[in-house]
């Protein structure tokens, strides 16, 4: 419907013209959050502060002085970003009750532009996982589990309990953010992406998930998982909105020495009409084992879409792709082991009652504070960092990482502009099925298509493409050249327009004021 069209005639315009007030918008979102509580997308809802921010925004609009396009727009933040005065838990016992004294740079930027911070969203503990199922606050449910589209396709169950347990996962680790955006409780959300944690849930929840180039957006205040791969991720309902968020967040941060110095110029996405000058690469290694025939077919169809529109579509090779998962695990766990060392219970967070000695305090605190997944990665990482293992694993993995990155360089140098790949191997699995395998296995399976972009630091975006046979969203991924987000998003926008992904039909949302429903249903706020 009106998903890809109507850029300026949506929420922002409505706010500006006074057709809807920021406080009204905020209240409706808060109400929707309450009625979709069963999704478990939010860990903390900052009702008071959000309403206050909405009031202040309203004042500004009354004076005719909005701070910008984001003024008054409700946004959700993944709970691994520091937010001053609002609990930041990383879905872990280690940080339950932790209130940060400062805002992450990206959070501050949003607040400075008048955005309304609705709350902190749920995730896998410390962003480790691909299902958003392993946090201490429980798993996040994919809103599509309750959509008309999914229910229609499900085999009718004899018992209502069975129907209840049929819900599917959001993917992870930014599942809460994806679910929040997909269920219309906010207009955009921040996630993080280390191995696909923004793109994976975006694909499963039918929203746009953007992973920017490493070094473009500041990581200051993002509780680190893998410093050399983490980036803040952007989740929105359409590509235009992702571009707006990107524009408000990108740029050098003196507090983050890994951000580039160059000035970033926010851009407006133009409507691409002629794709004949475009060269789309199809990496053959992404026809990975386990890729569902459905997604394979969609991928093929997408390639054809470009071809038929006049673009050059070529098969390319990224030969080191099969090694990337293992390489990723070595480097990821090593950095995790290092980054988690700061959680000793002394300065902040959970502290055990064990008093026998400092060592026993550390051990007990960390055992109590971290779940198995986190502890497993710490142990692996420390193993790889031991003096006798360092060369064999860590250094080797760094070398392989370079090879993987070079694969992309070679392909882009050969004239390819954008790569087109699937985002996930299949549509969202039912929770009961997903938890049959452990986190490590699942991550290894699910990260396969997304983490090479993290290894190479490249920008990538997942765009909702079509519904699967089960009535669940499937997304396809575009990977671009470093710092060429403009080109990447332009192509993504064109694709989005072509595929016309359906709007989710949720009972809960329908029950609400149809006015607001209109505003929220319209994907874009820009």
């Amino acid at each position, binding site marked *: 419907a009106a998903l890809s069209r109507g850029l300026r005639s949506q929420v922002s315009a409505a706010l500006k013209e006074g057709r809807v007030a920021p406080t009204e918008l905020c209240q409706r979102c808060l109400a929707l959050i309450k009625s979709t509580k069963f999704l478990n997308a939010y860990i903390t809802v900052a009702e008071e502060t959000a309403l206050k921010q909405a009031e202040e925004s309203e004042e500004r609009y009354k004076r005719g002085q909005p701070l910008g396009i984001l003024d008054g727009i409700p946004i959700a933040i993944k709970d691994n970003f520091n937010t001053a005065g609002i609990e930041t838990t990383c879905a872990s016992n280690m940080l339950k009750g932790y209130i940060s004294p400062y805002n992450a740079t990206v959070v501050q930027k949003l607040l400075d532009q008048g955005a309304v911070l609705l709350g902190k969203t749920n995730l896998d503990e410390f962003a480790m996982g691909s299902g958003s199922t392993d946090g201490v606050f429980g798993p996040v449910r994919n809103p599509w589990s309750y959509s008309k589209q999914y229910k229609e396709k499900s085999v009718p169950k004899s018992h209502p309990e069975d129907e209840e347990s049929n819900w599917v996962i959001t993917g992870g680790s930014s599942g809460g953010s994806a679910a929040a955006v997909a269920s219309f409780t906010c207009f955009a959300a921040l996630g993080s992406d280390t191995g696909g944690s923004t793109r994976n849930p975006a694909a499963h929840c039918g929203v746009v998930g953007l992973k920017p180039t490493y070094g473009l957006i500041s990581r200051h205040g993002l509780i680190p998982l893998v410093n050399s791969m983490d980036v803040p991720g952007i989740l929105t309902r359409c590509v235009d909105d992702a571009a707006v968020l990107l524009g408000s967040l990108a740029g050098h941060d003196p507090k*983050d020495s890994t951000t580039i110095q160059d000035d970033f110029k926010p851009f407006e996405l133009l409507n691409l009409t002629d794709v004949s000058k475009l060269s789309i690469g199809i990496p053959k290694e992404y026809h990975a084992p386990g890729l569902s025939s459905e997604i394979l077919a969609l991928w093929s169809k997408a390639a054809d879409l470009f071809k038929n529109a006049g673009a050059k579509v070529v098969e390319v090779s990224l030969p080191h792709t099969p090694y990337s998962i293992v390489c990723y695990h070595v480097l990821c766990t090593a950095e995790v082991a290092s980054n988690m060392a700061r*959680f000793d219970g002394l300065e902040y967070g959970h502290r055990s009652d064990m008093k026998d000695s*400092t060592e026993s305090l550390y051990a007990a605190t960390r055992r109590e504070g971290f779940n198995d997944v986190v502890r497993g990665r710490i142990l692996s990482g420390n193993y790889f960092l031991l003096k006798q293992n360092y060369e064999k694993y860590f250094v080797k993995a760094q070398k392989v990482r370079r090879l993987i990155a070079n694969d992309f360089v070679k392909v882009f140098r050969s004239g390819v502009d954008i790569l087109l790949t699937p985002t996930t191997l299949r549509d969202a699995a039912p929770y009961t099925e997903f938890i049959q395998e452990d986190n490590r296995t699942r991550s290894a399976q699910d990260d396969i298509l997304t983490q090479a972009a993290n290894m190479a630091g490249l920008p990538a975006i997942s765009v909702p493409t079509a519904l699967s046979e089960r009535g669940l969203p499937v997304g396809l991924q575009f990977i671009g050249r470093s710092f060429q987000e403009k080109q990447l998003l332009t192509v993504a926008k064109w694709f989005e327009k072509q595929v016309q992904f359906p709007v989710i039909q949720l009972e809960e949302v329908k029950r609400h004021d149809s006015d607001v429903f209109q505003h929220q249903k319209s994907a874009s706020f820009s």
Partner: protein
Amino acid sequence: VLNRRCVEAAVMTGLALNCSINKKSLFDRKHYFYADLPAGYQITQQRVPIAVNGSLSYSLCIDNKMSQMVTKTVRIKQIQLEQDSGKSLHDDTRSQTLVDLNRAGVGLMEVVMEPDMCCGEEAAAAVRELQLILQTLGSSQAVMAEGQLRVDANVSVHHPGEPYGVRTEVKNINSIRFLAKAIDYEIQRQIEELENGGTILNETRAFDSKLGCTVPMRDKEGKQDYRFMPEPNLPPLILYDAKSLPANMNHQQVINIDWIHERLPDLPSVKRKKLVEQYGILPEHSFTLLNEDGLAEFFESVVKQTQMKPKKVIGWILKDLLSYLKQHSLTVKESPVSSFVLADLLNLLEKKEISSTAAKQVLAELWKGEGKTPLEIVKEQKLELLQDQKELEQICQAVIDGHENEVIMMVLG
């Protein structure tokens, strides 16, 4: 985030110590768990430090005589930038440890010397010279008692011609004097241990200043694997020189080694040389002048204000003034006698208005700091030298007349 001033200080120090400055140096994480290390790791430069292969020249007096000085050199292995940890205060009575994190994360510069020194005296002299250099450069105020300069001594013994023995690390040394003591004690302890058939453990020991000995430290047991890993949040540190500096670089963003080199102040060794050349004083005098904070400036100030030759002034500075300061534990800045006043006194002496004995008396009086000028004191105590020949003869005659017996004894021989 890297502190620019720390990098500049490290480059200055590296240049002053004749090091090669690495145009590209790297940062690493050194992991271990300790209460005063909040991140669980320390950022340091294990792989490629900022400066390497330098040397430090220092002087020693042989046999405690200031007149015979020898110059020695100790090689500088490297200078690295790293983070400080917090401070742990052990409260044994309440079985608890208090942790002060205020200084955690502050930049440190570690200077690593090669084992080229043979005894406490050499180490003390080397560290003293390093201290002076650091203070001159402004890299650090380097006061050991304040923890601005921390020294750990690595000590080992071996028979001549044989390879170096197992070393121990001695920590908790709070002054240069204690440094010499700790090292000499440890050398002695190791020799005795080995001569009694024992072995030296590669351990960390603490210096107990009250007992004057080293004791094993209980905290650091066994060899730790620090699991070094490159620091992912700090890109490699790139330094430039005039040749390699790109044309359109923003000067705020870069450090130019040559620029820093041009602006290095005179190092102590250079200053001493200049003092010797300019004022004709002895080399050992220049050492004492620089060793005492502010003394060289005081000396030069007096020289400017008096006709007395510097070679003579130096005696008053080093013998009289300095001994008074030492007796009363005062710094040059706290001296009740200013350079102006001393110059005044020396002028009286130079003009032969008073004798040197009288001058010493006046100085003693000036030291009381009652604000009297030298001339006033001279008049008060009637210390003027008599210039009138006749008057002198009369006085002498009077003395002789008054002591007839002694005179007869003298004449008889």
